[in-house]
Structure formats: C-alpha cells, structure tokens
C-alpha cells in the first residue's frame, strides 16, 4: 500500500495514546485517583499528524463507524409529546388499534424488533414507560376527560394482555437454539414485559373486560359488540395457550386450535376497523435506544398477521404430538418435515418444539436420551442384543466382556447422543442457517464414524460376533459405525438439497450438483444394501431399510435425470455460464466443495474426473436425453409406489399428510422435468437447438419440490 509508511507511523503514536488498553473498569465510577492527565501526551502525539489525517484505533470497529447523525433517531416528535391515551375513541377506532397491535405482535414473531413494532405504539409506551411490575401500575395514567370508559375497560386490558403474551414468547424463544437478531429480536430495551403479573390476574382482567362489554352491550351496534368481544376472546385464548406452553409438563394436551374460530371471526369483521395512525410513532426509538440506528416501523398487513397467528396456532398445536412418543424414526421424519415447511415455522414454535423434544435430559417429556438413541440404532441396523443388555451395566469386574461392552456403549451414548440430539435441533433452524450448521455437523459425524469403527471392531471381538459373507467376502457388521455413516450420508444429501432450495447453486452448476446428489444417494443405497445383509430377520429393520432404499432409489433416478438434462443443456450454452470469468473453473469447483473436502468417505472427486462424468463427452446428446427420460420414468414409478405406502412403513405416523404432500411435490417435479426433457429431445432431433433461439428459465413454484425446480425450455420468439 502506498500510504503504508505513513499509517504505521500513526499506529505507533496511537499505542502511546491508548493508555496501554486499560482493562475494563470494575465499576462505572472508578476512584478519581485512577485518572491520569494525558493532555500533554495527547498534544505531543497529535503534532505528528498532518492536518486532516485520520488515526484509527483498532477498537473502533466498522460497526461503530456506521453511526451517523442521519441515522440518529432524533428528538421526540410532537406527536409523541402530545399523545393523550385517554382521548375519546370511536369503537371502530378501538378495533383498529387492537388489530394493528396484533399486526405488531405478529411482525415481532416474524423477526422484527419490538422497537419497530409493538413498542412503537404510544398506548403501549404509556403503559410501559412508568416501568410497571404490578398489574395495577400498568395503566395509561390517571383518567382524563370524557369517554374514557372504553379505553379503560377494553383497550387497556387488551394492551396489557398483548404485552404479557409477548413476555411469554420472549421467555420461551431464547430457552432454545434460535438465532437472536437473525430469527428473532428479544431486545426489550430495559422495559418490563409484565412478566411478574400472574396468569390468573391477567386472565381475570380480560374476564372483567368481557363483563363490562356485555353490561354495556347497548352502547354498541351488534357487529361492533361482537367484533370487540371476539378480539378479547382471542387474546384470552392466546394468553392461556402461552401460559400452558410455559408449563407444558402439566398441560400436555394442547388447546391452540381453540383460537382458530376467533381468528376466523376477527378476519371477517376487520372491515369494521378504523385506523388510528397517530397512535404509533417512530420517534419512540429515540427513547428506547438512542445509540442504535433507527429501524423503520414494520407495517405487517392485517391479512398477513392473520395468516401468521393462524400458523402459530396450528403449528404449535401440532408439535404436542411429540409427547406421545412414536419411535425414533417417526420423530426424526417429523422434524425433517417440520423444518421443510414453507414458510418456515415461527421462532416461537421452533423453540418450543426443541423444548418438548428434549428438556432436562428427557426426550419427549419422559425418555432418557439413551432410549431414543438405542431405539434409532436398533431399528436401523439391529446390532446384537448383547450390546444393549441392561445386565452389562451391573457387571463390576473390569476383565468381564460385559463390563467392557458397557464401557464402550457408555462412550457411544456420550459421543453419539449429543450429536444425535443436536441434529434434531439443527432441523429447527432457518433453512440458510440449517445448511451452514449441517456443514459443520457433517465433519463431526465423519470423525465419529472413524471412532465408531474402532469401537465396532472391539465390540465384535467382545461379543464373539461371527462374520457374514457379503459380496463374496466375510465381514463383520460394523453396526454402530454403519448407523453413524447412514446419518452422515443423509446430512450430505440434505446439504446438497438445500443448496438447490436456497438458490445457492446457479443454473450452470445444476448438472454438477445433481451429479453429487445422485452420487451421495447411490453411496447410501449401497450402504443400505450392506446393512440389509446384517440385520437378520428383524422385521422393523427390514421394513425401515427397504423403505429408505425405495425412497433413495426414486430420488437417485430423479437426480440422475436432472444431471443428464442439465448436462445436455450446458452443451448448447443455455445455462448462463459466464464466458470469461476471473479465477478458474477448478478453483470454483474446489470452493464449492470446500465443506466436503476433508470427508473421508465418500470423497470429493478430482476436478477432471468430475467434469468428465458430468459432461459425458463420449455420449451424444440424443442418447444423453434418452437416458434422462428413462430415469425420469423410473423416478415417477418410484414415487407412485411411495405415495401408496402407509404411515407405519413411511415412518410418518405424526405427519402423514406432509409426507404425502412432499411425495406429490416430487412427483410434479418429475413430470415437469420429464416435459423439459421431451422439449429438448424434439429440438435436438430436429437439429434446431442453438443458444440463440432457446432459453431456459427456472420454475420454483407450481407445486414443485423446492430442491427440484423445473426448467422451462422455450424458444426465444415465444418468450417475446
């Protein structure tokens, strides 16, 4: 750098200025004696600077630099200073305020900050700014003027209850792994959320509100009366459900679906609402956090608030199924489908499902972790019963094989138990985060596989396991490491599938990435076949492995068909591959495969080999497409069969509808991709394909599977 010399000179001076980076002060008011006058040193050091030259302290980060007067939230606006919560409101306006508070609450659930949503409400501000901890202090202040009854008896209880509901959510969400600031903003700017107010008192307040309403029924039209009533009833039900969730062990029967009727009602009578825009102000942010850039208020449309609260109720209701433990493979498939829901379930639900799944080292409210782990291992690969014999634990003689088996199984529970439970939790993260976290998990499962192989060998000799012939060679079962390997391969597939879903792979990488997908699936199919040879006659294992095989083969056919189709499209430069990029394709390939680079089996293949198997230079395009159509036909057949299997076989006892919906999306993708293969085949056979007259666009919607979007091959004339 040309200015390098000047800069390093400045850094030297900075060191002198920085008071040797004093450690953090123990308290905010240090004794005066700890101050040192540095005026002379400062003047001396600053003489060495040119006029206008900037010095930068290493502690001064870019984030701090972002502060700007323009980003300052500024003074409190008159709208704030002049706001009178007691001002008389029409009943229609009360409904409007209640509905917008619901929008605020749901926007917060969707990931916006309280300062952008609920806390921008001047009514909420009036209640919270006196820092109330008791219900009686949570008021708009002493009543003023006429017509305050509806404010006092309807609006105040409603506001207080919304705040209390948020307090429940704000307590639950950070209990589990949910990314703060990314999925959910828990910041309350030091304001009390009325956590200390008991549910009973809160519920009474709403009950009294209902009593007041029915006593004063004649003051309203019947529509208005019902609209207000429905809103209070919904709030009462939401509050009750949040409270029940916070004490779920006592309340294992969910009642969230009880809210749905009220939601439907308020959705209909929202037409009565009259907006009161002056009851919200951005300038509140000045009070909340003056050192943070203001964030625009989030105006979630009412229709979206309704769909969000509906989603909150139905999905939170659904996750209680977990408490009725349905077996490891069913629980796992429930989590996989839960995580794949679009839109992603709310942070609250994603947090609560983790709590219901594993709290205080108990799974689904009752089982020890080893039980679900053993359940999963036994169902998948049925190791010798000797490994799980409870009597092993009673054996006290270290030389006894039972003791030694118990010791190794203890290791396995500790090592695999943590990664296995974490895997469930990873499936509850937002999809972008899930993919990145699975890249890390994959490495851990990979090293665990190596360790488990060693333990397997020791266990084989401790249990005097007899080798069995597999593919002409006598082999041991390698049960535990087989189980680990199977999960590792599933993780590798999932990372690749998410790459498509999250649009991390652009079109011109599709051929190569579908090649990897089919490669991982193929590897897993071979592994399943091996496991099938070692599970004996255990019907549960046979059924699970055969189901996995079916599922795997179908997706393998689909992925292979995609790989061949995109490989054909690439030949005609139809995939928007950059012409003269910097760097090199090989570097990009290595960058793409970087997360997988250190995985032992299956390995990342060499770049030249990769290009060769993806491009198939020895096969003409017609044959390539013919092969693709054969694979797509097989895939359709596979998914047809999978769609007829019952929930016992498909391990979808808790989510059979979602399972079927997923199969139907995959089937649609098969048809769409089949059509694309057909169109391209016709063009190729007619000899009319040119990148200048055809174009390829991706269709993500139309009920296709998110990881198998459908390419629309059209001639350019038609498109115009």
């Amino acid at each position, binding site marked *: 750098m040309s200015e390098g010399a000047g800069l390093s000179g400045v850094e030297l001076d900075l060191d002198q200025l920085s008071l040797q980076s004093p450690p953090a002060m123990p308290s905010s008011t240090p004794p005066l004696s700890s101050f040192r006058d540095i005026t002379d040193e400062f003047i001396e050091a600053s003489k060495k600077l040119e006029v206008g030259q900037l010095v930068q302290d290493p502690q*001064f980060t*870019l984030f701090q630099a972002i502060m700007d007067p323009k980003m300052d939230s500024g003074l409190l606006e008159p709208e704030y200073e002049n706001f009178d919560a007691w001002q008389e409101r029409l009943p229609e306006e009360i409904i409007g305020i209640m509905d917008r508070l619901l929008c605020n609450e749901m926007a917060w659930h969707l990931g916006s900050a309280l300062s952008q949503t609920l806390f921008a409400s001047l009514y909420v501000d009036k209640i919270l700014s006196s820092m109330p901890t008791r219900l009686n202090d949570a008021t708009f202040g002493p009543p003023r003027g006429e017509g305050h009854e509806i404010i006092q008896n309807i609006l105040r209880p409603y506001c207080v209850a919304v705040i209390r509901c948020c307090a429940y959510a704000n307590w639950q969400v950070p209990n589990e792994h949910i990314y703060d*600031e990314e*999925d959910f903003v828990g910041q309350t700017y030091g304001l009390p959320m009325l956590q200390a107010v008991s549910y009973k008192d809160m519920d009474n307040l709403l009950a009294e509100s209902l009593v007041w309403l029915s006593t004063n029924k004649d003051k309203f039209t019947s529509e208005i009366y019902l609209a207000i009533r429905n809103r209070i009833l919904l709030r009462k039900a939401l509050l009750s459900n949040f409270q029940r969730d916070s004490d779920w062990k006592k309340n294992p029967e969910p009642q969230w679906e009880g809210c749905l009727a009220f939601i439907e009602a308020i959705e209909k009578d929202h037409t009565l609402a009259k907006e009161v825009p002056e009851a919200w102000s951005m300038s509140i942010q000045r009070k909340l956090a003056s050192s943070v*850039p203001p964030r625009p208020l989030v105006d979630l449309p009412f229709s979206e608030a309704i769909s969000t609260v509906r989603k909150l109720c139905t999905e939170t209701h659904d996750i209680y199924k977990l408490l009725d433990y349905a077996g490891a493979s069913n629980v796992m498939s429930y989590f996989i489908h839960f995580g794949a829901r679009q839109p992603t379930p709310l942070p609250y639900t994603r947090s609560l499902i983790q709590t219901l799944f594993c709290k205080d080292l108990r799974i689904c409210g009752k089982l020890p972790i080893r039980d679900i782990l053993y359940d999963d291992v036994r169902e998948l690969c049925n190791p010798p019963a000797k490994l799980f014999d409870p009597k092993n634990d009673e054996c006290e003689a270290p030389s006894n094989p039972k003791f030694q088996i118990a010791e190794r199984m203890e290791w396995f529970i500790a090592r695999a138990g943590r990664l296995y439970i974490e895997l469930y939790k990873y499936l509850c993260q937002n*999809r972008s985060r899930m993919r990145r976290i699975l890249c890390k998990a994959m490495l851990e499962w990979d090293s665990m596989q190596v360790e488990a192989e060693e333990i397997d060998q020791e266990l084989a000799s401790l249990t005097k396991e007899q080798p069995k012939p597999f593919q002409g060679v006598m082999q041991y079962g390698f049960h535990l490491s087989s189980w680990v390997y199977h999960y590792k391969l599933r993780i590798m597939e999932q990372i690749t599938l998410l790459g498509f879903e999250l649009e991390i792979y652009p079109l011109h990488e599709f051929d190569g990435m579908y090649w990897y997908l089919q490669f991982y699936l193929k590897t897993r199919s071979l592994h399943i076949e091996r496991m099938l040879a070692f599970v004996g006659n255990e019907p549960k294992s046979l059924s699970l492995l055969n189901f996995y095989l079916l599922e795997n083969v179908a997706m393998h056919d689909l992925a292979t068909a995609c790989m061949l189709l995109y490989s054909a499209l690439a030949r005609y430069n139809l995939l928007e591959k950059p012409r003269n990029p*910097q760097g090199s394709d090989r570097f*990009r390939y290595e*960058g793409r495969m970087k997360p997988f680079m250190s995985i032992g089996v299956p390995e990342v293949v060499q770049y030249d080999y990769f290009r060769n198997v993806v491009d198939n230079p020895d096969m003409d395009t017609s044959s390539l497409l013919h092969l693709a159509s054969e694979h797509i036909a097989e895939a359709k057949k596979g998914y047809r069969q999978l769609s007829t299997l019952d929930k016992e076989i498909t391990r979808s006892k808790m989510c059979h509808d979602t399972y079927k919906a997923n199969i139907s999306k995959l089937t649609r993708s098969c048809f769409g991709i089949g059509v694309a293969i057909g169109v391209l085949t016709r063009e190729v056979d007619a000899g009319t394909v040119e990148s200048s007259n055809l174009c390829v666009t991706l269709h993500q919607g139309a009920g296709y599977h998110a990881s198998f979007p459908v390419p629309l091959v059209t001639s350019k004339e038609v498109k115009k």
Partner: protein
Amino acid sequence: MSTTTSPTPSTSANIIYRRYDPKQEVIQLEAIRNMIGTDLSEPYSIYVYRYFLYQWGDLCYMAYDGDLLVGVVVGKLENHRGGPILRGYIAMLAVKESYRGHGIATKLVQSSISAMKALNADEVALETETSNKAALKLYERLGFLRSKRLHRYYFNGNSAFRLILYLKEAPNGGCCGEEGEHHHDHGEERGEREFDDDGV
C-alpha cells in the same frame, strides 16, 4: 429506469477510470458520499468512508464523465478472521442511475479485483441481496460463486448471498472453516453492504 435531469453519457468510451487519490480527499470523498448517499435508506457516516479509504484507498476506483463522478467501488483487503487467507472485500459499489447498463460497475469491480490480486489476495468476497438479480449477474459473470445464504442479513429483513471469487488453489485439506460466523462477526459485517444494481 426513471427519468432524470442528469446528462446522458454519449458513449461509455468517454468514461475515465481513476484510482482514489488521498491528496484530493476533500473533493473526491465528498463526491463519493454524495453519490452513494443518494439512493440509500441507511446512509453511511463519514467514518465508514474513512475506515475504508484511509486503509485501502488503493482499492477504491472511480469512474468519471468529464468532471462528474458517475461510479465508485470501495473495498478492503485483510486476513480473513486472522487466518492465512488474504481476503479482499467489495464493500460498496455504486453507479449513477443514468449511467447504468454500460459496464461501468463491471469495470470498476475488475479494477479493484486487479489491485487486490496485485497485493496477493487469495479470494474476494462480498454480500448482496438475494433479490438483486442484476448485481448477482454482474458478479457471477466475473466468476464469483454463491457460497452461502444469510437469513435476514439486512436491517430491512432481506436475506443475502455471500459471493466469493477464488483467485488461488484451495489450500490442502481445506474445510469449511468459514463457519465461525456467529453474531458478533455478522454484526460487524452487517455494515458492509453493496448497493449497485447496474440497471438494465
């Protein structure tokens, strides 16, 4: 593209590219701030510009039509997370609206990348909104790879792609060491947006 009163470029051949010159800070920095500040909802403070320009002024390039600044790229170059990888970063890229679609942004980014290469950069990274198709196209044409997606990365709630251009061979046994990224890092890099959309 909206109608503006600003002059339309006769041809892109008239555009002159210059590296940022610290001696002309007063004039250049002001012009850069004005241009970038125009279409930004979250304007950067003077410190942000200085943060980059004082340390990596040699990675900043400007495009002029006569005396008029019409485009700028601002970047930095550092060891990634204190490790061995020397990573360039495109922090800001802007082209005046009426000058878009003439390859000015591409030229600016190329200049900055070349300067980073000359300083032995291993890779160049940046983030862009997942919905900014024009920016994605621009960077991918230059060879950038989408390496990951960042959920709700921007204050407005939008998600980002992190794009990386690999300039050298991956070190042996490379793994996904990227992944330390928890919130403090994220917070820091939050400020580093780029906002070019090199229009149609």
